[in-house]
């Protein structure tokens, strides 16, 4: 796979192709598989993503600890806010839905990880539903998202334990932003700016889950991650560009992650996990899990 988004964007622009086309061609060559075969694997992932969105929105799902659950449905049926009836609110609901399914041991697609699995399906399926975009184009968008994630994995990290939440939900948001920008008709260069504009908004974000569990704040970080992705998409499609090249933004995310204190890398030693209430809740809920299993 590509190790530089600038290179992928240059290839696409020169050949008059999309980022998904260059990504699929490169993947097919790397793995010795056909493009059709790769697209059908992505199609299976899309089916699981849609299933998780649906289950999370309709189901009454709670994690074993009881720390998270039941909130996605509130965005569907709860009182109106300033975003009532908008695509934005629908996408927030979808992001919460997938993460609630994940926390309740339901089936999800780790994209790029389980902890950040809500952002990409929320943004892509939400936009596809609102705009009547067919599955073929959503599958292409997943290929673009995979390209972006692969470059981030290579240059920085996708793991909260290595690079904080900026590497997990931050990367998920960047993937969603680039993929959706292409899906909505943006150029490869615009997709690059959408990625950079999104990632600049999540730089430095710490990974601080209560008790070390993929629950709180992870579920909500997926919703806010989707929100930042939408901001990046909107700005890029409006023609706004980001002065720092996208590969350099990714590189600095990796550098920030490597120098981030270990307390902020999924160890529950800092951030929200280390607040008085965070510590108390983690203690109480872990006792509850043991009881429910016993």
């Amino acid at each position, binding site marked *: *796979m590509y190790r530089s988004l600038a290179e992928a964007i240059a290839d696409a622009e020169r050949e008059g192709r999309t980022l998904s086309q260059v990504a699929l061609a490169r993947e097919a060559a790397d793995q010795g598989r056909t493009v059709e075969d790769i697209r059908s694997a992505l199609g299976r992932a899309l089916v699981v993503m849609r299933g998780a969105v649906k289950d999370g929105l309709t189901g009454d799902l709670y994690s074993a600890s009881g720390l998270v659950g039941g909130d996605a449905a509130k965005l569907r049926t709860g009182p109106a806010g300033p975003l009532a009836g908008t695509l934005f609110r629908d996408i927030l609901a979808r992001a919460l839905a997938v993460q609630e399914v994940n926390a309740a041991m339901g089936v999800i697609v*780790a994209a790029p990880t*389980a902890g950040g699995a809500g952002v990409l399906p929320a943004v892509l399926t939400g936009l596809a539903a609102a705009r009547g975009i067919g599955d073929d184009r959503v599958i292409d968008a997943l290929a673009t998202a995979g390209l972006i994630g692969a470059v981030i*994995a*290579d240059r920085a990290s996708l793991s909260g334990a290595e690079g904080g939440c900026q590497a997990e939900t931050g990367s998920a948001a960047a993937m969603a932003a680039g993929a959706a920008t292409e899906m909505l008709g943006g150029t490869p260069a615009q997709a690059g700016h959408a990625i950079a504009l999104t990632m600049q908004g999540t730089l430095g974000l710490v990974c601080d889950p209560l008790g070390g569990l993929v629950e709180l704040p992870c579920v909500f970080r997926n919703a806010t991650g989707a929100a930042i992705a939408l901001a990046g998409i909107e700005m890029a499609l409006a023609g706004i560009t980001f002065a720092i090249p996208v590969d350099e933004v990714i590189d600095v995310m990796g550098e920030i992650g490597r120098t981030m204190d270990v307390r902020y890398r999924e160890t529950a030693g800092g951030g929200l996990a280390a607040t008085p209430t965070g510590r108390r809740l983690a203690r109480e809920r872990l006792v509850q899990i043991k009881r429910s299993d016993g």
Partner: protein
Amino acid sequence: MVSLLDIIGPIMVGPSSSHTAGACRLGLLARALVGGTPQTARIELHGSFARTGEGHGTDKAIAGGLMGFRPDDERLRTALEIAEHEHLDYRFEKTTISDDAHPNTVRMSLERDGRSSVMTGSSLGAGRVLVTEIDGYPVEVTGNYDTVVLVAEDVRGSVARIAGILAEHGLNIATLRLSRKQRGGDAFMVIEIDEPPTEAVRDEIRALPWVRWSFRLPKVSA
């Protein structure tokens, strides 16, 4: 080399690719060492597996893997109850395996129909795993390939003979590693293959007089 499908995947039961999907894969690999669902399993959890495993369903994922459930199998959620019907007598313990062990490490001591095996492995993140020890032998098995592991007397030409059997069956070797505890002592071979080996291959390897034992470990990655 990063694959696009590693990023958009795996399809898995939540909540954690390391603590749930990876834990399940380690269970699947350990199961193969005793040839099926064990009757007894002592499962020692180390580090983060011990501290946050219950909240991440690590116990359910490992038990499910031991029963042959894959990371995307929804039965993982109720694997501990299913284990009782399947007569899998499991016991979880929290331990410190060693100071330098990976934070997500588990040691499983299994028994099935008089066969027993001990496997240590770690979940490295994003669902990737590494088996580091089998029955006291240091190994490196990733589960990214179908793998043959075997213990043999340290005889000359053993590698060539094994490679020959695999070639005769049309199997292509991806990697081969050889280790031994001391010169002239038992040699431990880990051979990763591009296609799953048949039972005939296993039987042929086992029939070699200098092979003490041999197992096939399945590909457990997506």
